């Protein structure tokens, strides 16, 4: 393991320890070695693809098939219904409610998270004592499980005895029932997500920032560019690939949000009394495993996939513009 945190490359490769003297290749041996060169690569990647076929590809294709049928757990005849499940979903107000909640929480969580992470990374990139302490410090939330985060924050956001309400009380705010309304439950859930992931993203941005040659900044300083100006014109454009990576990951994570809202709503799939914080993932589980309507749940899962593709595409085009061509 590299000792220096700055080192971007691995340790030097030790010389291979091979037994010499195997050059006498007869025809049989040559055949074996040809076979080795041609076949072994496939052998090496086969575990992944075999597992993928069973636990990745099969579920996807089967989900597509199920979504086109009236398929229930009780079995019986799964009648082909074509796109009926999809049509029903698209006119189902409770599905749209879940979509709006998911996107709402996603935006509320991701935008501040990535902006804060950028600022944090910029600060961590300065010369300062106790560098490792600060880096580990911002990563600490990673050690907690999602479930643990949800439990602690649900208590912090409690109506009567929660610390958040207690603190807000000093500013004359009356006790808020955070679960009760859309906006308050979204804020509480987004806070959990942000607390857990901001530091992680900051460390990833920091890694990107450290690959930027410092003489770029020196040159800019000599030209009289302020540090804000340097941040916008040098730092941001240079770490754009890293930003795209984090946006990609946050989009997938955000749109499939599940554990936080489930725990926030006392371990139930409904997401509050009127579904004010039910996400799509919760909706799928509720339809499929609480109401046993598999076909419907499968169709919802495919719509979620499409939503993710759209989300990734939108974010990608958006980020590509940031800090570009200045």
């Amino acid at each position, binding site marked *: 393991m590299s000792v220096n945190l700055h080192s*971007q490359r*691995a340790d030097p*490769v030790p010389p*291979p320890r*091979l037994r*010499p003297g195997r050059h006498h290749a007869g025809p049989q041996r040559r055949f074996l*070695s040809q076979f*080795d060169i*041609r076949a*072994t690569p496939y052998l*090496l*990647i086969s575990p*992944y693809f075999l*597992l*993928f076929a*069973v*636990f*990745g590809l099969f*579920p*996807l294709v*089967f*989900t597509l098939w199920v979504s086109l049928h009236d398929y229930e757990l009780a079995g019986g005849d799964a009648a082909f219904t074509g796109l009926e499940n999809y049509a029903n979903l698209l006119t189902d107000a409770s599905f749209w409610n879940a979509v709006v909640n998911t996107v709402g929480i996603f935006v509320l969580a991701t935008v501040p998270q990535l902006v804060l992470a950028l600022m944090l990374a*910029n*600060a961590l*990139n*300065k*010369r*300062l004592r106790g560098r490792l302490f*600060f880096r*580990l*410090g*911002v*990563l600490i939330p990673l*050690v*907690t*499980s999602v*479930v*643990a985060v949800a439990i*602690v924050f649900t208590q912090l956001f409690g109506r009567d005895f929660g*610390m958040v309400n207690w603190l807000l009380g000093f500013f004359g705010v009356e006790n808020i029932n955070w679960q009760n309304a859309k906006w308050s439950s979204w804020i509480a859930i987004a806070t959990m997500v942000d607390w857990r992931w901001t530091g992680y993203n900051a460390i*990833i941005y920091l*890694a*990107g920032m450290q690959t930027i040659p*410092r003489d770029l900044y020196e040159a800019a300083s000599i030209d009289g560019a302020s540090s*804000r100006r*340097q*941040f916008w014109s040098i730092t941001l454009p240079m770490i754009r690939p890293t930003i795209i990576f984090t946006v990609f990951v946050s989009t997938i994570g955000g749109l*499939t949000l*599940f554990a936080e809202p489930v725990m926030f709503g*006392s371990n139930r799939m409904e997401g509050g009394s009127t579904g004010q914080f039910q996400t*799509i*993932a919760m909706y799928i*589980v509720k339809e*499929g495993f609480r109401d046993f309507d*598999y076909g419907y749940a*499968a169709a919802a*899962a*495919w719509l*979620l996939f499409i939503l993710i593709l759209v989300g*990734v595409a939108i974010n990608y085009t958006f980020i590509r513009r940031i800090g570009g061509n200045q």
Partner: protein
Amino acid sequence: MSGGRRRSRRDPFVATPLTKVALLATVILSIFPIYWMVIIASRTNSDAVDVPPPLLPGGNLGENIQRVLATEDAHFLQGMLNSLIVTSSVTISVVLISTFAGFAFARLHFRGRNLLLGSILLTMMVPLQQMGIVPLYQLMVELGWVGTLKAVILPYLLNGFGVFLMTQYTRQAVPEELVEAARVDGASTMRIWWNVILPAVRPGMAVLALQTFMLNWNEFLWPLIVLTPENPTVQVSISFLTAAHATDYVLIFTGTALSVLPLIFVFVAFGRQIVGGLMEGAVKA
């Protein structure tokens, strides 16, 4: 952002006092919820609802731990043990499978290589957890695996991210010429893997192992669906604890605190590597 712009004209990389204060505040905010968890876990239920809230640990931790272990319907110890088994199996397999595949994609030549690697990258975008949940469950019913640990181990053995990471790492840690040289010496592919690749990519494997361990330990949705409350993973056990003993804050918090112990251990022991590894992986990605 960068605080004092006055001094930064000379050297923009000097941390101003404002930057330091902001960083310290961030670290405190990062630690506080975990600290809070320990406070509640070491107190009584009447302390937990005090206003103003208690800010120092109490003396009831031992008693609370015993209470968690004595709560039979939560099967907490079984959950911890199961999580250890599941997470270790998944971590070992993911690292091995990814190292094999990473070697092939990075340093071997075969037909369809780029296409296959591309297909892995594409599948990383698919939320398998949510998309595949219905048929995966069906599959487990057919196999008779519902309620068994096999059901929560096997679907996690495939990890596109791991293959991607090890491919990148192998490319960068093992020069092409080294593989060629070994080949000229008459080494078989597996011998090259053992003697050349394995020693060089060990740091990458360590990082992948740590990340896999942490992610898998936290897995929640699928175990919740496919396991029974009698044979849970630790996350399922805790969610059951919260559902069945909703008003017993102290019990829930103690269980939660115990459940993150292995992660804290990993973090303390390997924190340095985690930071370094995250940063390396990010740059290569």
